[in-house]
Every structure is written in C-alpha cells, then in structure tokens.
C-alpha cells in the first residue's frame, strides 16, 4: 500500500532515527541526561519542532503563536483525565482534535495576510489565548494555579468500568499500564516515531512539493491553477495538531497544565529550535530541540556556588568578577545564552546545524550525489 511506503533513502533515515530515539537511555548516559523526565522533554519538543517545520520549513509562513496549540493540547488532555479516564489514548486523540479545531480558526484568519503581518497575527492570537487563560477562562484553565487532577474528579469512563478511587492521585495509564518513568518515555518515543514518519510522508508527497512551491513562488502557484490558501491552511492545521499532540504528551508525563505553556517565549522557542537545527530539513528541528533542551537543562541548573567552584582556579578578585558576569548567563538568565547562541548561528550558519554538517561533509570531500535539500547555488542578479 502506498500509504506505508517511503522512498528507500527516507526509509534508511527513519530506521536510523528510530534506533537513535529508542536507544536514548543508553547514549544519553555519558551526558548525564538519561533520566526519564529529561528524555521525555527531548522527545516531546522534537515532536513539536518537527510539526512546526511542516508549516515554517515547507511553506515559509513564520508563525509566532504555535505555543497556543501546545497549551490547548495540554488543557484538553488534563480535562480528559479529569472527566473521562486516566487512559492516555482518548486524552491524546482529543488533544489533537481540539488543537486542530483551534488552529483551523486561527489559521483561517491569520492566513489572510502573509509575511510579517501573518507572524504578528499569530502572535496576537496566541497572546490572546494566554491572557484569556488567566482571566475569563479561569473556570476551564484554573488560572495561575494550573489545571490539576484531583481525587474527586468524575472520570466517568473509569467509574463505569468500576475503577475504584484510591487514596492517592491516579496517574496516566495505557490499557491499564501505568506510565511512570521509562514507560512514559517509551510512549512518547513511539508517538514521535509515528509523527516523524508522517512528516516524512508529507515531505515526499505531491502535497509537500506544493507547499515548497508556495514558499518558492506563490504568484506562479496561483497562475498555475492552485488555490494557495487552503494549502497553507492545511499545513497550518497539521502543524497545529502536532503542537497539540506534544501538549497532550506533556500532560501525560505530568498531568498538569498551566497557561505559561502558551506564552510567546514558548512560541519563540520552537522557532529557535527549527532555525538552529535547520529549517526545511527533517532532522534539523529534532536536533535543534534536543540541543536547546539539553543546554537549558545544564545552564538553568547552574547557581553562583557552582560557578565559584568552576572558576576556583582563578585568583579571588578576578574570580568574583568572572562569576558576577557568568551568573547573568545561567539559571534564570539562561535565555541570554540561548540568545547568543542563536545570534551566532543565524550570522555564521544561516542554514543551521544541518547546513554546518553539510559543509563539513563537503570539506571532507564526500560529495554525495543526492539532490541537496538546502539552498540552491546563488544566482547572480541579472
């Protein structure tokens, strides 16, 4: 069947990717990052970025509001845990459906404009969602306290199946298997693999080529007989659903949803991940997501005491100075570091890490004969 077919090259990529993801607990050990909480983050944000790239990488529409869909996914999943069942399947399905509906509405309006106006519209909508979550919608979102599980939740489906309320809060499960720790990670990993496969299908399909063509020359697209807006909207909704799925998974690994997930910094982060890794490539956004989450994990954990220890080899006066400066870049200030890294990449490596990898490969003379996914050779202006 066509639907399960990938071209040979992509199949190899998929298999390698699957091995890398599933073996995370092994290869992350030397980095001290092989604990479930962090690995789940790696996988979930990779999923978010892969989906975001379907919009941004293929069509070129730069959305600054995708965290809204992440938030919608989280809230939906937690409500599903509260009202229906602790099983994650309905929670994830509902998260995808609801974020799809949201992105359809927001995309429909935002795509009436392009370029910077589109970006601003998406940003405005996302901030609106964020503010509503803190104000009018507090009955649904529980405002600043975040939406949480309670022992007294209805959980009608579970109740109908005769699940008895325990003394402690229930945790998410899949077909009765509780998803703590590594089980949670593996669930997320499998979801990522499926989502990655779908993204590969999109990239390889005629539909994906249309999206690239829209990015390349929208005028030609319309005079070629394509109605470009539904194409862009479809890409927008697909990427919104990926974001919702990621949000749902966040709730699965930790059944709690807060509005800060929808803030513009969260929307900006996925843009950074995609650009850092390599816009329009399949693997790039994944690497970008992993790198940012790893650095965040390291830098935000640093405190002054640790800095003093790190720089203890310096003479006292100098040491205080260095620590004072360095402390601005760690802990709460880790976004400063992120900003710096981002600037360096955009200036020196506009194609992101994937572009860097390609240049290195070229430098070693291993020119592969395959058609590059990156930019064509620059053409002199006529």
């Amino acid at each position, binding site marked *: 069947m*066509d*639907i399960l*077919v*990938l*071209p040979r090259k992509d199949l190899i990529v998929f298999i390698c990717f699957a091995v890398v993801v599933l073996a995370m607990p092994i290869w992350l050990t030397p980095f001290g990052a092989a604990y479930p909480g962090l690995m789940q983050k790696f996988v979930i944000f990779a999923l978010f970025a892969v989906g975001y790239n379907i919009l941004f990488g293929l069509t070129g529409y730069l959305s600054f509001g995708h965290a809204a869909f992440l938030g919608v996914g989280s809230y939906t999943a937690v409500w599903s845990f509260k009202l229906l069942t602790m099983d994650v399947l309905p929670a994830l399905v509902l998260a995808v459906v609801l974020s799809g509906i949201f992105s359809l509405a927001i995309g429909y309006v935002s795509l009436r404009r392009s370029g910077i106006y589109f970006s601003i519209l998406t940003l405005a909508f996302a901030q609106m969602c964020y503010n509503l979550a803190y104000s009018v919608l507090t009955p649904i979102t529980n405002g600043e306290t975040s939406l949480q599980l309670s022992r007294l939740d209805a959980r009608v489906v579970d109740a109908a199946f005769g699940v008895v309320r325990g003394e402690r809060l229930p945790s998410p499960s899949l077909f009765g298997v509780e998803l703590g720790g590594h089980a949670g990670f593996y669930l997320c990993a499998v979801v990522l693999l499926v989502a990655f496969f779908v993204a590969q*299908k*999109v990239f*390889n*399909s*005629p*539909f*994906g*080529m*249309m999206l*690239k*063509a829209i*990015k*390349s*020359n929208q*005028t*030609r697209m*319309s*005079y*070629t*007989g*394509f*109605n*470009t807006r*539904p*194409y862009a909207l*479809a890409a927008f909704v697909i990427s919104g659903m990926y974001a919702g799925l990621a949000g749902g998974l966040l709730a699965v690994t930790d059944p709690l949803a807060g509005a800060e997930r929808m803030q513009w910094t969260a929307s900006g982060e996925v843009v950074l991940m995609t650009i850092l890794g390599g816009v329009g490539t399949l693997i790039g956004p994944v690497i970008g997501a992993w790198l940012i989450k790893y650095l965040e994990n390291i830098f935000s954990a640093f405190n002054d005491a640790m800095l003093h220890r790190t720089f203890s080899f310096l003479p006292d006066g100098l040491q205080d100075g260095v620590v004072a400066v360095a402390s601005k870049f760690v802990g709460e200030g880790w976004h400063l570091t992120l900003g710096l890294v981002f600037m360096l990449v955009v200036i020196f490596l506009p194609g992101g890490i994937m572009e860097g990898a390609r240049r290195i490969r070229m430098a070693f003379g291993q020119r592969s004969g395959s*058609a590059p996914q990156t*930019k*064509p*050779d620059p*053409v002199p202006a*006529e």
Partner: protein
Amino acid sequence: MDQRPNIVLHVDDVFKSFGGLHALSDIDLQVEEGKTHAIIGPNGAGKSTLLNVIIGRIPPSRGAVVFDGTILTGKKPHEINQLGVVRVFQTPEIFPDLSVLQNVMTPAFAKRDGAFRVALARPLERETGIRDEALHMLEDVGLVDRREVHAGALSRGDKRRLELAMCLIQKPRLLLLDEPTAGMSRHDTNTTIELLKKIKSRGMTKVIIEHDMHVVFSLADKISVLAGGRIIAEGLPSEVRGDPRVQEAYLGGEHA
C-alpha cells in the same frame, strides 16, 4: 454548417488607467480558436497590461474579458488557469527552489488534481505517470539533461524555456505568451518557434507578444498593433507589414 469563425477570446471595450496614465483605452480584441494572434507595439504600449487584464492579475477600469462564454473579469488567477488559460510571463515566473523536473511536475498536478488536494499517500517518486509526462515535456524544450538542477540556477533563456514547458504541460486551451524568446540566442529562438509551431497543429489558441519580427511573422495568423494604449491597426501579417501607421508607430517608438 456554420462558417463563421469561432471566437474563443473576446476583449470587450477594456480601459485601464494607472492614476492619470491611460495604459489601455478602448481595447476590443477577438481571437479565433486555434489561431495565433500576435500583439506588437513599442515599449510601454500597454501590451503586458493587456495580458494582465486577461489573466486576472489586474482588474480593468472598465470593460470585460470573456473566454469561451465565461467572463474572466473578477475571477481569481487559479480559477482562470483551471479554465485552461495559461500565461508565460515577461520575466520568467518559475519555482527557483525546486528542481527543474519538479517545476514541470507541479503544473501537471494542478491539471490532474484541480486547485486543491491534499495528496499524501503516494510518494512523489511513485507518480510515474506525471513524472514521465514531465520528462517528455523537458525533452521537447531541451532541458531534460538539467532536470535535477535547481531552477533558480538556470540561465535566463533556460528559465524561459522552463516556464514554457510548465505552461505547455497543462495543455492549455489558450496560451498567453509575453515575449517568450526575449534574451534567447538565435538558435534557442528558432527551437522555440519550432516548438510553438508544433503545438499550433494541436489546435491550441495563442496570444503572443513579441518584439522580434522574425518570430511574429513566422507564427502569427493575425496581428494587432498597440501604441499608446490603443489598437491602431489589425489584420493579416501581410496587411500589417505594409501599413504606414504601423511603421511610424514602431520606428517612432523604437528610436525615440
């Protein structure tokens, strides 16, 4: 039997002004099915503007365009394309980031699948029908060796040929060509003329704007001369060639 010529394209009393500039005034044009209708005239005469009005890129200030009984004026570009009206632009409009082959496959999908379809299941590689068709087309315009190249890297003349291939693969009913051979070598110009002659025998209607009189006289069945936004002469090539007003407008325009 009805012996009257079958007119597929009517341009009816069209005016277009940009601010105070009358780019087109009082334009009436009838194009007969299966024929090649050339529009010539000096720079700034309004030729491209006329094509823009026909294809829906700019709305006329007055008047309408009717193609085969359908009013084109007010329709969206993709709707006009789906009716079978296709255009080659004066500055080539291609997809610079796609490969040459993909450039030609894309319009074939528009023809097969319509204005919008989310085709996800079958990988591009397996679309052998469309792929073969596109390769065929590339062979016709002589770009088949460059099929894997990014279209943005082509020379200007090659971009023109590519755009022509992108238009021809849709088997349009009406093809609008805005200086299809400008910037081409003599040899490539002749190849293009041959190609356009070949599709003439397939019964496609063409409107062609051209400065190169060699091209015009080898292709046109009928010629309209545009100057200062008005049609100043119209007729068979032999008639137009000798018309003193045409020579004046042309020589006046070219050497002013």
